[in-house]
């Protein structure tokens, strides 16, 4: 049975945030990059043939038992420390009991009232409309360990989605992969900037986790997942409103867009006199809307209790301090250091951070470019390309090394800006490295004086009037001749050298 519902009414965003005060809660799941699963020795390598990375434990066969992966515990503690959390001196795993085919034991081993890390915080900086950076402190309620589920394919329906499917197929390769769930306390007071704050928080987490080396943090691959809780209230002083939870938010951009949408949708409902249904919603990337999912009106009865198959985790204070001492530099500190090293203005820095391009710029600088050039490429052509293709910058088939090579060719005079953009297209199309594309497409700037000189002479001959003006001292007129030469050479001339040659002949 399929139902079609009318599209939701959505209030204009500015109106919505004018009339209501939004509060957010973000739950981020991080897939750890351990070699083996959380409770068994099966491999976690991505993309294997279905059901080839499965054992009695992660398949939930009768008689199987879990044993905790030490590396996962270590990563959990490091994540907690990096988020300024307290680390539990004694905590346990708990069973979260619910039935679902992708959950082979029909319970998930997680942590309930004894998370390994708790009461932390993180800061993000987001520019306001005047471009002034504002700092927001986000309170982290907890970070805890749990296991991932299997993956289902829904067969027989029109779209491969669950609604209208005839049956489903289960692959348990991902069942048991270690996850860390990071939960914020309600984020209040961001007002109109709430979507941007949320995006900045997830971007910051991604950078932090990447810096720790605990996860691939690729949102498009699911190793970093974000669920966004949104609620509205009339004023900041009112009690928090009913919240919805939006899932399927698979990119930084989606985080921002989904929250923005939800604010507008909830505002429309509330100002119409309706009430918000406490439910799970799904972000639809295409239409840019959230759709209604499972109602959470009745609180889920998970019957949490300490998992009797596992024993408590009691990290010694020595171990915790050892891990703390070996943490990499905190992202905000790193950012400030890079920014000053790069000589960026606040606005330039904010743009780089907002685009999630800090690491890319840093790597490009390391590969030999100036910070400004790196910024220009990543925030210019490459961001345009990424947006057009609907992907993250990291997913482009071009990386910091190629960008540095490209800029190097420009610096060496082999390419001008126009040619460099053409070469970039070639690299993106998979034709090879910048040098290879230059070669195969014959895109190098002509700097051979002989060829240039010949072209200059031709242009002078073809434009006697302009030539006279230049002879008479009107140097600016040289532009027309330079243009003519560039056109004749298909843009492959070094404009600066052409100008020199023109002036040599005529002055």
């Amino acid at each position: 049975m399929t139902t079609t519902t009318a599209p939701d009414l959505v209030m204009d965003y500015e109106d919505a945030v004018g009339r209501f005060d939004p509060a957010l809660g973000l739950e981020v799941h991080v897939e750890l990059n351990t070699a083996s699963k959380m409770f068994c020795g099966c491999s976690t390598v991505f993309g294997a043939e279905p059901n080839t990375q499965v054992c009695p434990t992660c398949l939930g066969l009768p008689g199987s038992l879990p044993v905790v992966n030490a590396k996962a515990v270590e990563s959990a503690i490091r994540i907690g420390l990096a988020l300024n959390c307290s680390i539990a001196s004694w905590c346990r795993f708990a069973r979260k009991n619910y039935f679902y085919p992708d959950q082979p034991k029909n319970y998930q081993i997680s942590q309930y009232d004894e998370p390994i890390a708790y009461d932390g915080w993180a800061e993000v900086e987001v520019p306001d409309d005047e471009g002034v950076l504002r700092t927001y402190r986000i309170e982290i309620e907890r970070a805890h360990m749990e296991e991932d589920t299997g993956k289902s394919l829904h067969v027989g329906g029109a779209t491969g989605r669950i609604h209208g499917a005839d049956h489903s197929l289960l692959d348990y390769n991902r069942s048991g992969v270690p996850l860390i769930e990071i939960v914020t306390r309600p984020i209040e007071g961001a007002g109109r900037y709430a979507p941007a704050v949320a995006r900045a928080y997830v971007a910051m987490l991604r950078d932090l986790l990447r810096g720790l080396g605990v996860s691939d943090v690729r949102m498009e691959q699911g190793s970093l997942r974000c669920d966004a809780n949104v609620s509205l209230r009339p004023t900041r002083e009112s009690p928090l409103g009913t919240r919805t939870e939006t899932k399927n938010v698979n990119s930084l951009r989606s985080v921002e867009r989904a929250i923005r949408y939800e604010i507008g949708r909830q505002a429309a409902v509330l100002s119409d006199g309706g009430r918000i249904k406490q439910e799970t919603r799904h972000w639809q990337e295409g239409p840019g809307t959230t759709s209604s999912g499972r109602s959470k009106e009745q609180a889920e009865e998970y019957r949490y209790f300490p998992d009797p198959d596992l024993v408590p985790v009691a990290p010694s204070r020595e171990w915790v301090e050892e891990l703390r001492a070996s943490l990499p530099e905190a992202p905000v500190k790193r950012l400030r250091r890079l920014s000053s090293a790069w000589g960026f203005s606040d606005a330039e820095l904010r743009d780089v951070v907002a685009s999630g391009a800090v690491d890319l710029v840093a790597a490009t600088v390391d590969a030999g470019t100036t910070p400004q050039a790196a910024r220009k490429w990543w925030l210019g052509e490459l961001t345009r390309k990424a947006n057009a293709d609907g992907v993250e910058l990291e997913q482009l088939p071009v990386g910091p090394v190629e960008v540095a090579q490209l800029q190097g060719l420009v610096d060496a005079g082999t390419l001008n800006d126009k040619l460099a953009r053409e070469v970039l297209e070639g690299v993106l199309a998979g034709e090879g490295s910048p040098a290879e594309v230059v070669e195969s497409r014959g895109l190098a700037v002509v700097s051979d004086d002989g060829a240039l000189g010949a072209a200059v002479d031709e242009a002078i001959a073809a434009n006697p009037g302009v030539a006279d003006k230049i002879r008479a001292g009107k140097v600016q007129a040289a532009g027309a001749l330079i243009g003519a030469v560039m056109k004749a050479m298909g843009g492959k001339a070094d404009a600066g050298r052409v100008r020199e040659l023109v002036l040599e002949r005529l002055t």
Partner: protein
Amino acid sequence: MALTPNDVADLARLARIELTPGELAHLAPQLDAILEAVARVSEVAAADIPPTSHPLPLANVFRADVVRPSLPREAVLAGAPAAEDDRFRVPRILGEDA
């Protein structure tokens, strides 16, 4: 504390057991009697007694992050009530998108 057949039906739903009306009627008084008997635990003054976490005080039992061989796929699917395309085939799942 009296458990009605309706209460039992709610619990059965939570536990995914499709009890018949006859079973519901039969079970409710039985469970009620058992609950009354086990509720004796509340007679014990245990305000400052810690609950037992484990029969023996073990902690920090871990395994190294080392990959061990998984089951061969045929063995994995051998016991499956239904399989298709190397996956477990299950009836359609209602509810929200996974």
